[in-house]
Structure formats: structure tokens, C-alpha cells
């Protein structure tokens, strides 16, 4: 394994975590937009409670991907930034409006009118961002960024295959979020998100078929990568198994299993994408080796990653333990029950 391969692996791992955590956040925003029925308000409150304490940490993964890309594979970063200027600007708009609106909603007046207005900004940008993110991934994988960057059409990404990947990404994140929320919900609310997870899972399947068919016409290299490699079949089989398990678990109301299977499915999909375009970073112009920064930098960054991981993962564990853990953990310095009730910033901010 060369340092470039290890760093490519680190970027892929960060993308998996971004899909699992940040993606579920976007999915939460999509369910905020699609909240319907008599428990509309309760659905939105659950989304807000589930995301509140963790959304900022969930989105740092994307920054990590960007930083690793420009530090370790600077020419790929430059090529992507030039060729995908328009969708990346749209993605930024989505990210900014979403994060700002979510925070503003929390700290603005609790009146319904104000809340609905911020909610609309939050949820519509939560749809925009993953669609554009999918489009970016689709465009990179499709081989449309080939050739000298100056010669690239600024709207080359606007073609069927990248758009279908955008749809697929949004559906996948919605499916993931609904599976997570079904675990955190109670009673009828749990049923709501169970039904939503099943519905979104259906859309994911449809979008996957669509993207697969379109890749045949529009992105032959992806199609070849997906179908003709040694690992293709076992990987597809594992993904399909995870998907079937998730569906079966949802039907049988085994929420924890469904959550785990959905997360496994998303992980395998992202890994499958990475594996299908390996060793290319930008298909088919730049491989990991072509785009590599000097070795000294790559080695230094690998050490920095190792050192960072040592304190990052325990901290993340603590965060999720405090807000997502079901049982109290002895190392966590917990508030004594009943004390400090008046300390809460806002009742609905507590999970």
C-alpha cells in the first residue's frame, strides 16, 4: 500500500462517515419538508431533537474530505473545482442555508409562523444539498471531467447519469434518516417513520435501477467498474443482502436491526463506488498516483490523521453516548436527576 492508497482509503472512510452521519442529517431535513398527517408537528420536533446536538460534528467530515483532497491530491482538487464550479456553488448555498436556518429556527421566536418559515428554508436546502452532492459524485465517476480542465464544458455535469445519482443520494439519505428516526421515536410516531423508511427504500431501489441503466449509456466506465470487476459480484450481493435485511426488519418492526442494516447498506454503496473507480480519483483523467502531492506531505498527513483519530473518536463516542446512548455510562459525569432542570436552554432542545 502506498501512502496515496492509504490516503485514498482515508478519504473514502470519511465519505462513508459523512454519508452515515451528515447524510442522515440531510435526510432528517427531507422528512421535515415531507412531514404530513396529524402528527406533523411531532415528526418535525423529533427530527429537530435528533439532529440538534450533533449536526455540526456530523458535517465536519465533509471539510475533512476537502482538506485531505487539496493537501494530498491537489491537482484532482483543482480539476474538480474548475469542472464542477456550478454544482459546487449550489452545494455551498444548500449547506449554508441549511445550517443557518436550522440554528436560527432553534433560537428564533417559538411562534408557529416564524418556525414554519425557517423550517421551509432548512428543509428545502436539505433536499438541494444531497441532490447536488450526488450530481457531483456522479459527474466525477462518469468520466465527463476528462481532458484539460480549461477545455471542459461548465455544464458537462448536467446530464442524465449525474442527475440520477443526485436523486439516488437524496432517496438514500431519506431512507437512512427514517431508519434512524424509527429507533428514536415512540408509539405512533415510530409507525410513521417505519412507513417512511419502507417508502423511501422503494424509491432508493427505483433510483438505483435508473442510475444503473443510465450508466450503461452515459457513464460506461462506471458501468464497467460496477459489473466486470472481480469484487463486483460479492459486493453487490452484500449490498443486496443488507437491503433485504433492512426491509425485512422494518416489516417485522425490528428497528435496531433495520437501522444497522440500513447503515451497512449505505456503507457498502459508498465503498462500492470507491472500489469501482479505483485507482482513479477523477475518472478517467487522474489516478491517485497521478494526482499525488509529494510523498513527504502524504506521510506527514497520515501521521496527523492517526494523531487526530486518537482524540477524535473518543470525543465522538462521548457525544453520541450523551445524546444517543440508551444506558447511562459510568465515565460520563451525569447530572443528578431533578437538579438543574431550570438550566435547560430550551425543553425541546433535549432529546
Amino acid at each position, binding site marked *: 500500500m502506498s501512502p496515496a492508497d492509504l490516503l485514498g482509503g482515508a478519504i473514502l472512510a470519511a465519505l462513508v462517515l459523512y454519508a452515515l452521519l451528515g447524510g442522515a442529517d440531510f435526510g432528517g431535513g427531507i422528512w421535515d419538508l415531507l412531514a404530513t398527517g396529524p402528527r406533523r408537528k411531532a415528526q418535525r420536533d423529533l427530527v429537530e431533537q435528533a439532529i*440538534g446536538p450533533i449536526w455540526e*460534528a456530523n458535517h465536519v467530515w465533509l471539510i475533512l474530505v476537502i*482538506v485531505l483532497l487539496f493537501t*494530498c491530491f491537489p491537482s484532482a482538487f483543482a480539476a474538480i473545482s474548475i469542472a464542477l464550479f456550478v454544482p459546487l456553488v449550489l452545494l455551498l448555498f444548500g449547506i*449554508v442555508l441549511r445550517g443557518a436556518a436550522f440554528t436560527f429556527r432553534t433560537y428564533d421566536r417559538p411562534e408557529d409562523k416564524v418556525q414554519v418559515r425557517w423550517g421551509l428554508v432548512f428543509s428545502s436546502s436539505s433536499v438541494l444539498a444531497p441532490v447536488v452532492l450526488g450530481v457531483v459524485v456522479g459527474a466525477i465517476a462518469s468520466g465527463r471531467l476528462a481532458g484539460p480542465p480549461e477545455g471542459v464544458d461548465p455544464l458537462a455535469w448536467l446530464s442524465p447519469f449525474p442527475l440520477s445519482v443526485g436523486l439516488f443520494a437524496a432517496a438514500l439519505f431519506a431512507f437512512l434518516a427514517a431508519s434512524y428516526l424509527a429507533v428514536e421515536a415512540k408509539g405512533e410516531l415510530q409507525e410513521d417513520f417505519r412507513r417512511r423508511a419502507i417508502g423511501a427504500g422503494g424509491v432508493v431501489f427505483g433510483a438505483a435501477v435508473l442510475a444503473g441503466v443510465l450508466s450503461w449509456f452515459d457513464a460506461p466506465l462506471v458501468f464497467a467498474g460496477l459489473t466486470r470487476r472481480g469484487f463486483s459480484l460479492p459486493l453487490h450481493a452484500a449490498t443486496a443482502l443488507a437491503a433485504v435485511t433492512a426491509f425485512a426488519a422494518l416489516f417485522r418492526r425490528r428497528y435496531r436491526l433495520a437501522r444497522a442494516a440500513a447503515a451497512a447498506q449505505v456503507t457498502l454503496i459508498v465503498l462500492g463506488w470507491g472500489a469501482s473507480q479505483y485507482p482513479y480519483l477523477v475518472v478517467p483523467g487522474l489516478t491517485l498516483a497521478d494526482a499525488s502531492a509529494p510523498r513527504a506531505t502524504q506521510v506527514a*498527513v497520515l501521521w496527523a490523521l492517526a494523531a487526530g483519530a486518537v482524540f477524535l473518536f473518543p470525543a465522538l463516542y462521548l457525544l453520541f453516548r450523551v445524546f444517543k446512548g440508551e444506558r447511562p455510562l459510568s465515565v460520563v459525569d451525569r447530572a443528578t436527576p431533578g437538579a438543574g432542570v431550570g438550566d435547560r436552554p430550551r425543553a425541546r432542545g433535549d432529546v
Partner: protein
Amino acid sequence: MNDLLAARWLFGTSLAFHIVCAAIGVAMPLFMVLAEWRWRRTGSPAYHELAKRWAKGTAILFAVGAVSGTVISFELGLLWPRFMEFAGPMIGMPFSLEGFAFFAEAIFLGIYLYGWGRVGPRLHLASGVVVAVSGAASAFFVTLANAWMNVPAGFEVATGGAAAEVRPLVAMFPPGWVHEVVHVLVSCYVATGFAVAGIHAFYLLRERDNPFHQGALRIALGVGAVAALVQPLSGDLSARQVAATQPVKLAALEGQFRTERGAPLRIGGLPDEGARETRWALEIPYGLSILAFHDPGAEVLGLEAFPRENWPNVRNVHLAFQLMVGLGSALALVSLAYLLYRLRRRPIPRRLLQAVLVTSPFGFLALEAGWLVTEWGRQPFTIRDVMRTADAVTPVGNIAVPFVLFTILYLFLAAVVIVLLRRQIASAPPASELRARARAEGLA
């Protein structure tokens, strides 16, 4: 507007906006933790109220800072792909470490904001401390990257123009990193301290005995005033470093056109690049030689020593520098007066509160001016003497469109943030209510 100019405007606007959030993100967690610590120590409801409200303010600004920082990290490539292609391997190390500091900040701010009453007091306070420390660490690492652009080090330029023989650790700590990092960090505490103190001074002028605003002033102005008195010392360090490593920048910021021994220090004045002189300045003989080299006879290189096409915009750099120094001096004077009253345990007179109110925006104005000094002062290079800004820009056209869109977005965000912050502080409980609460808890 050509695309280079539009790209510079877009990046400049994004940074000018982000820097305010980032500076507040460095200092505000410290204030918030100090308020909570005072509350845990004294049990005073005023400090409790303060800690909670400042935490909400921190949350709003952190979120806006996080998203605007995300924009910057993308814009580095979107606007300056050639720069990033060259510089990524060198400035990537500090950015990677900054990423981890930012991660820590996001994680522990989540625990702090949503953990009131959910985690115990020690973990809660410790989370706040981690937020304050990692905020400062982020600023530290990002400033290292800027220091490298000013004084690039740790690489060779190979034939073909790519970087070769990269030594990441040398690039991470280029000559002069210490002064720039210290100056930037201190400026965050000055700017935020005075801005926050000004808001509370405004309310104290209406209601002198409100313990909420009194406590707030004590913490924000206490930190801000000490920092404002440290800043001139760090400025002196900076001047000497800039003189040694970036003489053309020093010449521009002082409006020094001729190379001379015993150069005077110019206060005010308007440089005229055509006539090659700085008019209407108050000149202090030997001042510049003393400041820059601690020697009244030292030779200071003038702009004439450098090719005309390598000059920055002398008028802009000089004026921004004068503005920064002038504002900083005013803040140092107010700080001195405040600390004297505090040390003698005398009540703060109305006049001083008014002075704090008037000078409250000076810190941020000085911070923006100082940032412009360092960035304009490096032009026309984006990496000094290595890469010109014109060669770094993206080949993508119509940059004016995203420039206009992002400017509208920033104006919108700024307006909302101001409204929300104002509401947090304007609705603070009156003195009578806080006293009643203190009595109820058996403190008074």
C-alpha cells in the same frame, strides 16, 4: 468587473464575513465559560443567566461561522485552483490540524449547548473549556497557512513550476509565524471583548445597578482590556518581523517611497504613487527606523528598491494600516482607564461607559483593517515572490454572478444574526428580578 477582480471581491467578502464569526468563535466560548464558572462559584443568578445567554449567542455565531468556513474551504479551490494545486501540499498540514480542532469544537459545543442538566457540572464546564481551547487552536493553525503565503518556506520550485522537495514541517512553521499567530489571537479577544462590552455598557447606561450587565462587562472588558494592552507589544514584534521578511510590505504600510537611514514614522498622510511621496503625514524623526529595527540610524528600504510591478496598492495598505493602529491605540487608552478603575475598586464612571460604547466596534474594524494590511500588502502575489494572484485564479468565467449571490446571502445572514443576538440580550431580566431570584436562593 473582470473575473480576477470578481474572484478577489468574492473571496474577500467571504473572508471579511467569516473572520468576524471566527474571532467571536475564539473569544466568546472563553467568556461563556468564565460566566458559568462564576455562577458555579457564587451561585449568582445573574451569572447563570449570562452563561446561558452567551452560550446561545455562541451557538448562533458558531453555526454561521461553521457554514461560512465551509464556503471558504471550497472557495480556495473554486476561485484559486492554481494556487491550491501548488500550495496544497504545503499549507495542507495546518489545515488538516485545523480540521481536527474544528471537530473538537463542534463536538464539545454540542455537549455544552444541549448538555445543561443532562451531563454533570464538571463535564459541562470542561466541555466549555475544550470549546474555548480548540477555537483558539483553529485560529492558530489557519494563521500558520497565511503566514506561509507571506513568507513561503519549505519547498523548491521545480522546472515546470510544481513544488518539489517539500518539507511539510518547515512549511508549517515559516519564518515569522510567531508574530502573526500572536497578533491574530490577541486581536480576537480585543475585538470580541470590546464588542460585547459595548452592548452591555449600553444597557448599563440605562440601568446602572443591573448585576447581569455588570457581570458581563466585568468579564468581556476584563479580557478585552488586558488583550488591548498586550496588542501594541505584539504589534512591535510584528513590525520587526515584517521589516526583516517582507520589506516591500513595510514600505507600503509606512508610505516609505525612498530608501533612507533614520526613516521617520508617518502618522496619517496620503501616499501618492505617481509622485512617489506621502503627503500631509505627521512625521516623527527616526521613528520608523527605531520601530522596525530598534536602531535610529537603521536603513529602511523604500518602495523604489522594488520593481514597480511588484508594488502593492500603497495608498490602500497605508490607510488600512493607519486605521488599524489608530483604532488599536484608542482601545488601549480606554483599556488603561478601565483597568485603573478596576484595580482601585472604584465604580466605573458614566463617561467611561460612554467611551466603551463608542469604541465597541473599533476592535472589529481594526481586525478587518489589519487583515487587509496583510493581504493587500502581499499583492500582486498570492504566494509572495512565487505566484501572482492573476496566475492563481480559476479559468471559469462569470465570477461576478456568484459574487453577487454570496454577497446577498451574507447580508441576509448578518441581518438575522443581529436581530437574534439583540433579542437574547435585550430580554435580559431587570435588576429587581435578579435580586428577587438571588433572595429566593438565599444568597442576598
